[in-house]
């Protein structure tokens, strides 16, 4: 009698542990629940696509995204926002999050990116390279120095020996793209993937490899997540051949 009660208690408590308890096996069809993924702004288009594909492969799982400038995301995570996975646009922010104790497990690099100058379609101001950003009459904007793209653009400009003061320090690559689209600014520095995602609304001017900066994008599960297995599955998917080829179609460079 007591043994039966004890077994009952064990079974009930196992069941009460939540949906995760039943999904210890990595079999994709038994996953259910949803996760919140905070990802850098430059991952908007690609991660939305990855999310849809991941859901198709795992119908019981939903993925919610929050895209913003990487430093903004770090702040939100550290202030207690509910989040399961974090994809950063550089290693500096990821290191900060890790050092502050907000990560679970170690981060993995899943993609790389490089910079490109963004201009209005038709390139009306005739920007040919980084030096032209300093041309009089050109309104150049970029991301703030704590945003990875902003940090890298400063590096690229320094490498090319170009001195130019931006007219504004935006909070994310998306904001820079928006202002170029609106016609408020003439040029900015964003990632190649951003220009591809914006399609015909903007045009890109390549930056030579000598001055360009390769951005490394790591991904990690966030400490305190209640869906470690879905997190692992999602990260695995991003790192898988399918995921990598999806990222490549959006213009990302491979992880290695």
């Amino acid at each position, binding site marked *: 009698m007591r043994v039966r009660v004890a077994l009952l208690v064990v079974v009930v408590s196992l069941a009460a542990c939540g949906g995760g308890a039943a999904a210890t096996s990595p079999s994709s069809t038994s996953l259910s629940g949803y996760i919140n993924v905070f990802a850098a702004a430059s991952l908007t288009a690609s991660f939305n696509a990855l999310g849809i594909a991941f859901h198709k492969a795992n119908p019981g799982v939903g993925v919610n995204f929050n895209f913003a400038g990487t430093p903004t995301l770090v702040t939100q995570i550290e202030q207690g926002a509910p989040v399961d996975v974090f994809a950063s646009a550089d290693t500096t922010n990821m290191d900060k999050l890790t050092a502050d104790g907000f990560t679970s497990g170690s981060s993995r690099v899943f993609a790389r990116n490089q910079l490109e100058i963004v201009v209005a379609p038709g390139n009306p101001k005739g920007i040919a390279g980084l030096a032209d950003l300093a041309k009089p009459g050109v*309104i150049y904007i970029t991301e703030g120095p704590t945003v990875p793209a902003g940090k890298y653009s400063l590096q690229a400009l320094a490498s090319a020996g170009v001195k130019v003061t931006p007219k504004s320090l935006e909070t994310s690559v998306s904001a820079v793209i928006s202002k170029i689209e609106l016609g408020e600014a003439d040029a900015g520095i964003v990632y190649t993937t951003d220009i591809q995602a914006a399609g015909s609304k903007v045009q890109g001017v390549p930056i030579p490899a000598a001055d360009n900066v390769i951005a490394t994008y790591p991904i990690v599960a966030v400490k305190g997540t209640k869906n470690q297995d879905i997190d692992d599955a999602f990260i695995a998917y991003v790192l898988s051949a399918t995921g990598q080829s999806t990222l490549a179609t959006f213009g990302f460079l491979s992880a290695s």
Partner: protein
Amino acid sequence: MRRERVPIVVIVPAAIGAAFFILPLLGLIVRSPWRDAVAALTAPETLEALKLSLVASLSATAVGLVLGVPLAWIYARVEFPGRDLLRALTTLPMVLPPVVGGIALLLAFGRRGLFGSWLDSTFGITLPFTTAGVVMAETFVAMPFLILTVEAGLRSMDRRYEEAARALGASRWRVFTRVTLPLIGPSLFAGAVLCWARALGEFGATITFAGNFPGVTQTMPLAVYLLLETNQEASFILSLVLLLISLVVLVGLRHRWLIA
């Protein structure tokens, strides 16, 4: 004076309401790193942002007075078809999300905007990314407060004083400056202060329309927002400063803004 006992059904919600406002202030005071306060406050970026904020908000208030008082006067004194619609339009920024206001400003005064493109092609003047743009964004969101307050003051003043002045030979301008304005003094003052306080705290329209650059367009609210990502504790201190400025203003106003 005999004190009447306040009913419980009033005290409890009132206490909760008060706590709702007091707790955040306490949170800021407790979490702010007072040791580093002086350093945070005197850092060059902070002083730059503070100076820019003061200059821009005072300019916005001045523009608000010059443009807003005549508007308030028209709303209070002149009947014309479409007046209510016009009043609603000029009051809209009060309920509009500030970012929406910023977008609207871009579409009108941005480089490709309705009016902005003309400015650019004729004079080569662009307003986004300039301090003037900051003043415009702040005026846009803050002026409605001034207009409403001054209009209320004009409506509630005894207009017979104006008749008395006219009967004494005062021209309409003299009536306005020597009689009307002094009589609505309290409303004028309250309206200007509300306008200034709102302009000081403006964020969404500023960052959308004017952008963000230290010394040119990075006002205190923008600086605080960005500091949150780089130096959280410094951002707490600056938040406290902004909060205390607002508190001083409001306590100073007391019930002046309720009565003409």
